[in-house]
């Protein structure tokens, strides 16, 4: 539109390019900048969270295998709000206590209940780890397209303006196209970190989940052995 007419005199700094752009292109650019902000927010959040989860898991495993009494450990952990492996441990222990101490009859039923409780907790924890990774994937895949849309709209308007001004001079055409291409640039700036972060955090979440599953299986085996021992002693007592 009129920015093409001013083409000869305007400078081409980023700010002026942004201000020259049409409404649609401006909205696209703003949306992409918002997406970028969101991407980096997730990146920061996930980095912190994964680091903390890893540290907690390490600490828990150290305490768990230290030979400390499981009853004591359960008592200390259940007071806090446990996450990760601790949450799985607490949920299993809670189910164990509820069922066994009230005098469960079937060891198989008890085993299944404990496994179910651990699965549910595991799924909840894994969901927490993978939360918002989906939006990273969306930004990574859709960002370039949104930027391209802004570019196409910008180039369209700039060509319409050229048709109006009846001049094909490159100096007239260039600013409009540069301004339109800025949208694609912002889209790529938002999308590239999103894709990288998505891949990294998906892998990290997978690792954490596998580690929790491993712990759950191990703990399930331990509990199963405990159940058998308790059942034998109880039957012997009867």
């Amino acid at each position, binding site marked *: 539109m009129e920015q093409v007419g001013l083409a000869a005199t305007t400078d081409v700094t980023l700010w002026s390019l942004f201000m020259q752009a049409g409404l649609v292109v401006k909205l696209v650019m703003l949306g992409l900048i918002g997406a*970028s902000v969101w991407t*980096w927010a997730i990146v920061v959040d996930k980095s912190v969270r994964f680091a903390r989860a890893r540290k907690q898991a390490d600490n828990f495993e150290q305490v768990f295998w230290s030979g400390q009494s499981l009853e004591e450990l359960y008592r200390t952990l259940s007071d806090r709000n446990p996450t990760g492996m601790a949450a799985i441990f607490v949920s299993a222990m809670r189910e164990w206590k509820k069922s066994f101490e009230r005098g469960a009859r079937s060891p198989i039923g008890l085993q299944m209940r404990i496994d179910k409780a651990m699965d549910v907790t595991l799924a909840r924890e894994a969901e927490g780890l993978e939360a918002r990774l989906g939006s990273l994937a969306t930004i990574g895949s859709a960002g370039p397209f949104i930027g391209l849309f802004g570019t196409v709209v910008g180039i369209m308007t700039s060509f319409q303006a050229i048709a109006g001004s009846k001049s094909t001079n490159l100096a007239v055409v260039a600013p409009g196209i540069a301004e339109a291409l800025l949208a694609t640039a912002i889209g790529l700036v938002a999308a590239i970190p999103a894709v990288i972060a998505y891949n990294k955090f998906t892998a990290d979440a997978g690792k954490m989940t596998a580690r929790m599953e491993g712990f759950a299986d191990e703990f399930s085996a331990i509990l199963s052995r405990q159940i058998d021992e308790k059942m034998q002693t109880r039957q012997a007592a009867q």
Partner: protein
Amino acid sequence: MRGSIATSAALHVLVLAWAMISLGSPAHFEVADTEAMPVDIVPVEELTQIQQGDKKAPKAEKAAPAPTKRPDVVENAENLGENSVDLKTPPRPEAKPLEKESSAAPKAAETPVPTPEPTPQDKPELVDEKPPATPATEVAALPTPKAEVTPQPRPEPPKPETKTEAPPPPKEEPEQAEEKPIEKPDAEALPDKVPAPMAKPKVEPKPEPPKPVEQAKATPPAQTAKTPDRKADEGKKDAKKSASAKQSDFNADEISSLLNKQDSSGGGAKRSTQTAALGGKKTTGGSTLSQSDKDAIKQQIQGNWSIIPGIADTAGILIKVTLHLDRDGNIIGQPEISSSGGSDAARRTHEGGVRRAIMKSLPLKGLPPDKYDDWSEMVLNFDPSEMGF
């Protein structure tokens, strides 16, 4: 999460601020101003089919310049004109000849003046006259020397008449005599020795035969002969002989005789025998189809010609097509097709192919309407071996 959003937003603000500052407008390209070069596309027929006409003549079917008068034909002449040599320069109007001749003639008459002196016979006489001549005014002395001098330098036959006439003029001319010695003392003194004999044969023959009266004027030189005598007394002693000899090569009076008096002329030598005509309306830009016009027509037909592959003996076949076209480019009647070379079967096949191609490409497009006279009947030659893809 709120904290990380704030962190991210702050990070973006920082990056954008840095981008605004450091990624300011990039350096502009240094573009040297280049001048656009205008290119005109000139069809060759504008040059090859120019027709020369006469602007003032009435219109006729064919343009022709005004007829030339000279009958002799100069070969390969390109420029119209009556010249004997073909020149591109336009013919010049003839200059007025009379003025030049009249101005040239008196000079020629004056030139003989020195001639009498150099002759050896003059000198002794002049010496005798000196004593009386120098004291008296020049005018008084004039009559006597003339009579004596004039006869001697000119032993030639026509002069006796001039002698009789000679005596009267001196009275009229003393004024000239007075002027001349003053103006040209050196020049006249010099010729005594060297130049005069040289000049005589060239100059004298021209003025003498046609103008006897002027010879009377020629006589006054005798007066000038005296003045050199005076100077001979004064100047000869100065031993300027060598210097005067050099100067004597240049005689201002003889320049006219050395000049080439033939007027330079221009104009071509191409003759025209037709009546002058401005030319008709059709002749702009030539009336025959240019090569590119013909190629364009051929291309239309070739585009519709589907060559049947695998025909034996295609090489050497030439197909000649004669078309009669109306002004819309449609054919009148049937195309006349004849062919040569190759086998009969192949020829027949190709003739059919050409006929179909022509019929398919009718009406022919791109034919210049102003050249209809040329393309109303068109002969096209096709070589099927060139049609291969």
